[in-house]
């Protein structure tokens, strides 16, 4: 209402409570106060409840001796190890099953997705039946099926299925020979490292030569030769510094060798099959998103069906495929937590299950578990975003 200052814009006649800026600040303040107060309320209640139950807060419990065994661990672990160590074992098991699952699901998914688009009626139908069956059945049910109905029904260790007297399959798991490295094996590892460096150098050289002269070089065959041949040569030179420990039946079970427990197998199979059905649909949608003219043009240039798919269609389809694919990878990682239903010792089962029951540190344990999954989620999506950006640069 200030009339003197006529040079500026006319003073606003809006009431302060109608001014969008004031309102926005007001609403945000209300939200903030509500969040802070409910946070304090929850915090206060939790502190009261914990005090009454006599549970000490904090992460001190991580150093305490766990006192329970874990059937499979990638790092050294015994009953005398700490809760923190048990957590690490669980986390590594989660990552292991997620990693194996992602690889298997991608392979099955890409094959089924391409088969879904096959011109062969029967093959396309079979792929469709696969997709529609497995994605409409809850994952937990599939895990139960594989674990209780299939793997638990395998013969007992005494009547194991035997492959070449080295691999034994029974209801306690898959027993395989494990390698024992002797002196001089480091030579083989060095040879492998040199081979990997050689492959990288060769790929660069071949790429450069193709850009300059247009001549193709069969990098794939040469790489395989290098990767297999060089370590093999080192193995021969060093005089086979490698022996195998073969599992042997002693009493009621096998002793020695490496064992893959049935819990892992059940989880791995069901996660891969279930996620593959979603990946197949993503691959199909991605391929269909590449215009049909691309296929026709490639055929017109005389490129055969296989190379057309590999060199023309898939690189373009990948751009469409990668964002939803990354979210399927995340889903698979998160779904690996269902292992707790069949007691595969991954993070949720070990940490949120056993450790929580023993210590009662609910708040700390659940926050840590959620934090780990959140970081994995954010990590994978950051990685995928980076890859996505890299792929998008190719677009012209």
């Amino acid at each position, binding site marked *: 209402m200030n009339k003197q200052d006529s040079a500026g814009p006319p003073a606003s006649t809006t009431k302060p409570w109608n001014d969008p800026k004031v309102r*926005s600040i007001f*609403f*945000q303040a209300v*939200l*903030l106060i509500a*969040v802070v107060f409910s946070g304090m309320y*929850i915090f206060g*209640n*939790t502190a*009261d*409840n*914990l005090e*009454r139950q006599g549970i000490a807060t904090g992460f001190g419990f991580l150093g305490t001796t766990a006192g329970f065994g874990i059937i499979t661990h990638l790092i050294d672990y015994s009953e005398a190890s700490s809760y923190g160590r048990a957590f690490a074992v669980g986390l590594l098991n989660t990552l292991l099953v997620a990693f194996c699952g992602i690889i298997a699901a991608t392979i099955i998914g890409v094959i089924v997705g391409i088969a879904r688009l*096959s*011109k*062969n*009626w*029967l*093959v396309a139908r*079979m792929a469709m039946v696969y997709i*529609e*069956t497995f*994605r*409409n*059945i*809850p*994952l*937990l*049910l599939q895990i*139960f*099926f594989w674990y*209780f*109905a299939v793997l638990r029904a395998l013969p007992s260790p005494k009547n194991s299925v035997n492959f070449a007297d080295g691999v034994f399959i029974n209801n306690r798991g898959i027993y395989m020979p494990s390698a024992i490295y002797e002196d001089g094996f480091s030579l083989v590892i060095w040879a492998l490292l040199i081979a990997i460096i050689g492959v990288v150098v060769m790929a660069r050289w071949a790429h450069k030569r193709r850009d300059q002269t247009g001549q193709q070089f069969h990098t794939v065959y040469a790489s395989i030769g290098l990767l297999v041949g060089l370590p093999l040569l080192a193995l021969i030179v060093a005089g086979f510094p490698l022996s195998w420990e073969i599992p042997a039946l002693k009493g009621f079970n096998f002793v020695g060798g490496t064992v893959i427990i049935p819990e892992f197998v059940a989880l791995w199979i069901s996660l891969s099959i279930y996620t593959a059905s979603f990946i197949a649909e993503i691959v199909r949608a991605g391929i269909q998103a590449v215009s049909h003219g691309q296929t026709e043009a490639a055929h017109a240039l005389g490129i055969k069906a296989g190379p057309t798919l590999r060199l023309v269609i898939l690189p373009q389809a990948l751009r469409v495929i990668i964002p939803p694919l990354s979210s399927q990878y995340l889903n698979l990682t*998160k*779904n690996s*937590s*269902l292992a*707790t*239903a069949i007691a595969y010792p991954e993070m*949720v089962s070990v940490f*949120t299950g056993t450790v*929580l029951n023993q210590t009662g540190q*609910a*708040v700390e344990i*659940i926050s840590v*578990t*959620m934090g780990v*999954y*959140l970081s994995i*989620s*954010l990590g994978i999506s950051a990685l995928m975003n980076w890859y996505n950006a890299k792929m998008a640069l190719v677009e012209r």
Partner: protein
Amino acid sequence: MTSETQYAPGSHPELPPPPSTVGVVGWLRGNLFSNTTNTLLTIFAIYIVYLLVPPAISWTLFNADFSGDSREACDSGGACWVFINVRLGQFMYGFYPVEERWRVDSTFILLVVLMVPMFIDSFRHKAWLGAFILFVYPVIGFYLLAGGSFGLVEVETPMWGGLSLTLIIAIVGIVGSFPIGLLLALGRRSKMPAVSAFCTGFIELWRGVPLITVLFMSSVMFPLFLPEGVNFDKLIRALVGVMLFSAAYMAETVRGGLQAIPKGQYEGAEALGLTYWKSMTFIILPQALKHVIPGIVGNFIGLFKDTTLVLIIGLFDFLGIVQAASTDPKWLGYSIEGYVFCAMVYWVFCFSMSQYSQSVERKLHTGH
């Protein structure tokens, strides 16, 4: 027959297509045996079908036992559906008392009867009916199921179970998460930084963690959050967890719809002088929600499958009760039948919902 007949230009009679390209033979040649690779693939596929399908059919149907009331009736070597037959009541209703099961039936029948007009295009009062279903029906349903008043015997929630519990969790979860998800989606797109940050954080937190940790949280952490003496039932806690989890996914689906609305619609609504809530209710959301119906159905399918996880925190949903039944000493060794039956039920629900969502998608696509 002389092939040298002369035709005036344009007077040649139309010849039928070569016999190898039409009919069954033509179809086979075109789709299954067009070249060597294709033929090999076909033979391989037929072999796989031969390996899988006949044994499966004879196991489920021809060699199966259907009637009887104990495991002695199962002697033909195939599936023992007697197990399912005997336990069917429990699979559907859990431990709900037998003489009170009509209450569960009528709750679901009432819902179906109320839902039917929503799918009839010419029905006029959809808004009123929708409001009735959303606000009045849950109250009726709750009193019918839980009882304790109106002369009904009280049935406590630990007695609920089976397929009916699965449906209750899925329906309450999706209906309850819808308004929360809507608000979160609007909040995430808000111009107020605090609101948008809060909603984004909330959504990403729930989307980044597996449902199982949310359920663990609801079963062990929620009781700690509440003041002394206040305690909720296990089912309610699980429902809250499921709702918050699914609200985050719902929010992202709705946000997709909001982003698909052209900017002109927002500006047009603003130019007409509509307030934020009016422009959302009358202009933006009706258009956005129409586009995300398939997405919402997809969320519902996901949630329906995810309800199986409640068995881990000790509720007996459909899978939980089948799992419990198959460890019953009287029926040991028939877990495959239990899982197959369970899988078929889930499959029928999920598949029909996904077909429905695809038909809606097709219906919406023709509009443009």
